[in-house]
């Protein structure tokens, strides 16, 4: 079986790869932005604001675009959401602000809030304008674990108040999922790092790389050495399918594939000729779409339930389909099929057996017994991540694998706060930013300075 394990890099030439991984949604021109901004009604008690997890004053920032006050517009956005630039790129606006837009009710054509937000924040960042000043140093020190959106938002909020922040980051670069977990075409031109440079320019924030909680630093030590601790750990664990053969060549975690795509030159990233992605979230969409864009011939996402249950929005699903990814729903993997390449001993995946699923009378997902097999050189697992919990004593309380927090994002430990994907709630960048923002405000209050 010579076609077993057909996984290769460089399936497409450099020009094609560059085109495929360019900005998925190019920015609005200045003219487009003004036309779009003028459509906004400047609603009172605007539903879009309520739908934004960070509560950005959307009508105000849009009005400022319409009047040519772009600096004021960006400031309004960043005041509520310091990662407003990346949220403009990755927020599922179709289920947040834009779904709430009154134009959606009126004529099903919401204001392009995300695109306008990008227009204003890009304008500010391109000019190197620093919209915030750091307060006089307070001498208080806070440890932030994880340089993802939650940790960065928290660190920025604390730094603005004059506190000194040290971020402990396990990876060699900051950004968390913005740097390692989101499709390259959403953050073209190294946007994640440019934005982080902008955030850190406020001063008072130091990042120590290669420092993982529980391995290189302990919570006990951080609590001892700092006035407060914020945990923005994310979900570093990856869920397994629980099937035999997951260690076979060609079976891979989708999140690792996405990370490699962000870190390595695209022509060095290997992809199968036939790829099966298992899962129904944005990780599945990003992995599958990028597999196609790398040159995979045949990419199928398989999800065990229907389109409404997928955590990827309808727009995300449509995006994948536009890129010739096939989505098959109501099927669950039951067996990984392997083979051995000529001249080798190690088995490689050759396909996945799925059982069709349905809901039984009680609404539970059940297997119908009907089986089909999809041939695959590469299987990408995207069925969710989990918290790698801190093995030390005195860890904050967990519930359903997440750190329990109150409205201020304070954990069961009085000086420890947490936010982002490691706490309950939607796993969205914008939600993580809000967690970090609220925690920073609460820590500042708690420090009483």
């Amino acid at each position, binding site marked *: 079986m010579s076609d077993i394990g057909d996984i290769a890099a460089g399936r497409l030439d450099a020009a094609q790869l560059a085109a495929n991984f360019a900005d998925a949604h190019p920015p609005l021109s200045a003219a487009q932005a003004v*036309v779009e901004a*003028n459509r906004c*009604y400047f609603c*009172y008690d*605007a539903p879009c604001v309520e739908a934004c997890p960070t509560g950005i004053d959307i009508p105000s920032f849009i009005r400022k675009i*319409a009047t040519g006050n772009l600096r004021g517009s960006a400031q309004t956005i960043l005041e509520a959401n310091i990662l407003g630039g990346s949220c403009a790129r990755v927020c599922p606006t179709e289920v947040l602000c834009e779904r709430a837009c*009154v134009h959606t*009710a009126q004529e099903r054509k919401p204001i392009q809030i995300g695109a306008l937000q990008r227009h204003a924040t890009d304008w500010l960042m391109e000019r190197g304008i620093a919209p915030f000043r750091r307060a006089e140093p307070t001498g208080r020190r806070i440890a932030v674990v994880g340089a993802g959106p939650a940790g960065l938002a928290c660190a920025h909020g604390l730094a603005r108040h004059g506190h000194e922040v040290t971020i402990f980051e396990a990876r060699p670069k900051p950004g968390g999922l913005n740097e390692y977990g989101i499709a390259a075409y959403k953050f073209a031109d190294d946007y994640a790092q440019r934005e982080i440079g902008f955030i850190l320019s406020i001063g008072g924030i130091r990042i120590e790389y290669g420092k993982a909680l529980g391995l290189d630093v302990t919570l006990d030590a951080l609590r001892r050495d700092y006035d407060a601790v914020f945990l923005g750990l994310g979900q570093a664990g990856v869920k397994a399918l629980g099937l035999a053969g997951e260690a076979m060549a060609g079976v891979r975690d989708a999140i690792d594939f996405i990370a490699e795509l962000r870190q390595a030159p695209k022509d060095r990233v290997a992809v199968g000729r036939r790829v099966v992605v298992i899962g129904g979230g944005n990780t599945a969409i990003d992995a599958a779409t990028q597999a196609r864009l790398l040159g995979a011939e045949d990419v199928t996402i398989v999800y065990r339930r229907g389109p409404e249950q997928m955590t990827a929005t309808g727009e995300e699903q449509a995006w994948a389909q536009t890129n010739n990814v096939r989505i098959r729903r109501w099927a669950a993997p039951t067996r990984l099929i392997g083979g051995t390449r000529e001249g080798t001993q190690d088995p490689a995946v050759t396909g996945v057996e799925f059982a069709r699923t349905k809901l039984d009378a009680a609404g539970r997902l059940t297997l119908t017994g009907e089986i089909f097999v999809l041939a695959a050189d590469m299987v990408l697992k995207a069925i969710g991540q989990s918290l790698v919990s801190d093995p030390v004593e005195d860890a904050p309380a967990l519930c359903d694998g997440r750190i329990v927090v109150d409205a201020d994002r304070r954990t069961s430990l009085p000086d420890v706060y947490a936010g982002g994907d490691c706490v309950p709630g939607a796993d969205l960048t914008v939600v993580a930013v809000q967690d970090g923002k609220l925690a920073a405000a609460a820590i500042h209050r708690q420090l009483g300075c």
Partner: protein
Amino acid sequence: MADLRSNFCGIASPNPFWLASAPPTDKAYNVARAFKAGWGGVVWKTLGEDPPIVNVSSRYGGISYNGVRIAGFSNIELITDRPLQVNLDEIKQIKRDWPDRAVVVSLMVPCTEDSWKSILARVADTGCDGVELNFGCPHGMSERNMGSAVGQVPEYVEMVTRWCKQHTRMPVIVKLTPNVTDILAPAAAAQRGGADGVSLVNTLQSITGVDLDLMAPEPVVDGLGTHGGYCGPAIKPIALRMVADIARAIPGLPVSGIGGISVWRDAAEFIALGAGNVQVCTAVMHHGFKIVEDMIDGLANWMDGKGYATVAAVQGRAVRNYVHWNDLNLNYKIVAKIDQSLCIKCGLCHIGCEDTSHQAIAALRVNGERRYEVIDAECVGCNLCYLACPVDGCITMERQETTGGVVTWEQHPNNPLRKESAA
């Protein structure tokens, strides 16, 4: 199909849509294109004495509002800058080529009888249908004691009109300036001088904006600006009022309506308030001559729907309902009603009323959903919410039952000078 043929001061045209005296009517080339597009008539751009005036570069200013271009428009252009004979020759040729269209010639010469007498004779030779005396231009020419400098002095209006009527058999239309406190004074003066009709409004004195880098009024001419003449959609309400005032006070005087007319509905409104025909400029400068197609069939279709057979049947129909404030019924009561099924929850009805008016629209949450409700007892029926609501038909103003019939201020108990009722 409605008959749109028009006869204004004895000047016939296939429809009531004329182009006003302005850049679009400066040359035979433009006028021929306009007639080809379907315009019923033109008033040729104002002729003056030789040597021709000189125009500046940078002539127009515009108002953009919420992305809408040329909501208002201004110019500092003067009258024609071409030699008189060139214009006269072209007018003669155009009238010969388009005999069914109205060709009226606008004139502006110094305030001496000889000047008017001499130009009238030369203009009559073109075979044109009439003249329009430009007593309206409020910039540049007025500094030379012409244009609105004449129009602002009723005695001059009457005097020059009389000269013209004495020295020509052509119909004489007097174009009025709106830059006066009482439009009836120059209108009545024109009538006393024998004018066959008046046309209004000419442009309003204006500064459209300031270039905040150059710190100069727009349009900027080499770092400086001067006031211009304002026109376009923004001035329609001002023009409508002046036309209606004349129609109400001087019923027999033909009026050619001008001022921000862009679509057939604008024209219908001017005609309803007494205009015999209408003149258009800014709308064609923005969109070209083709817009007349919609003006013609839009007006005809509306007239068909209403059963008006001729323009005359529409003319002045709203004048009888244009009254003084004191004649309004103080016992008339309307309140806003919100159709909740159409409401998109923008909250504009609430915030306008709450911040600036009568606190008559409550902002509620019902099971977490926004709901805006009119508080009937507080609503004075001002129309603000109805005007602000972006959804057609969502807010309507509903008449409330009242007792006591019509009560005007003249009869109202709060009026110390009230007239006791006859009973």
